[in-house]
């Protein structure tokens, strides 16, 4: 009796294992219908003539490479002089966040030893935290940061991006020009400036 039961007892787990293995895949992906996929963030993007990832990356790359060659930036690295980025003016007909460009430039400069200070929308968080530590009465004095020790930047980056759009009967042509300047804040002297031009065309 026990001899007859044994193969049956083995058959059920084996079938279960087989049915489970049929569902298994070596691809580390979650369930999906395959309509969504990941692409290369560094690929050349030519979906439309609007400013896109490739344009942002090319602009930031050129500006960083050019900035690193300036004596002011080299000195800033040596002497730990501070940099900040004013909001770049978007004069194109499209909406996009120009901080995409300046944030990338600042990050790449920072990797090379340039120190920069925060400004604009990040400033509020900084002020809030300083006030919380000093004025809320929640923190030990010995373990909280002091007010009045923030450092000002010596240089600021400022610039604009403009576009000229031309439309023919069967073609659309867009010319972008990004201008970036490095300004010594105390004197207002422009120490460095650079431009990047991009032309994009599409058949209509």
């Amino acid at each position: 009796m026990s001899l007859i039961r044994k193969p049956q007892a083995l058959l059920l787990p084996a079938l279960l294992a087989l049915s489970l293995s049929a569902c298994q895949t070596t691809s580390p992906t979650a369930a999906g219908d395959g309509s969504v996929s990941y692409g290369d963030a560094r690929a050349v993007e030519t979906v439309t003539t609007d400013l896109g990832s490739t344009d942002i990356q090319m602009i930031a790359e050129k500006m960083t490479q050019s900035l690193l060659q300036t004596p002011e930036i080299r000195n800033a690295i040596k002497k730990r002089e501070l940099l900040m980025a004013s909001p770049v003016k978007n004069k194109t007909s499209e909406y996009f966040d120009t901080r995409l460009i300046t944030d990338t430039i600042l990050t790449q400069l920072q990797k090379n030893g340039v120190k920069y200070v925060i400004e604009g929308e990040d400033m509020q968080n900084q002020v809030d935290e300083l006030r919380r530590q000093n004025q809320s009465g929640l923190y030990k004095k010995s373990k909280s940061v002091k007010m009045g020790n923030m450092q000002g930047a010596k240089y600021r980056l400022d610039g604009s991006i403009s576009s000229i759009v031309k439309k023919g009967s069967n073609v659309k042509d867009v010319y972008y020009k990004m201008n970036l300047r490095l300004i010594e804040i105390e004197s207002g002297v422009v120490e460095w400036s650079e431009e990047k031009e991009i032309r994009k065309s599409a058949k209509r």
Partner: protein
Amino acid sequence: MKQITMTAALGLALLGTPCALQAAAEGGTIASKVEELGKMSYLKVTDMRAVKRDGLLRIQVTISNTDNSNQQLYYRFRWLDDDGFTVWDEEAWKPEIIYGLQKKVIQAVSPTFKATDFRLELQSPKNEGAPFSGSNPPGGITNQ
């Protein structure tokens, strides 16, 4: 292509800091610095110069179009240290139009002081046997 790469001296002008670029100059041919994604039919790297100045590697590459028609090129640099490790994030692919029979000069400066060597990745959609065909750039997103 082979003949050109073998005969065209890689003009690694080792001005400034010759020692720093000694590793980069190893091999001494354009072929050792260029990585083509599929053999290019019409575009050839005919000159390449590298110099380290003020701590930054400066590269100048001449790409010649041997065809009468315009050619699309995609390129990017990979920045390496003496030991062959990458010292910077992957660069974005950059598009470039090379007019018929034009010799286009491409210049680049390393984005970091740590770079002592480089590789130039090239892809042209009309490459012979390229893994990409039509108007698709490497991993490119195109308007369908």
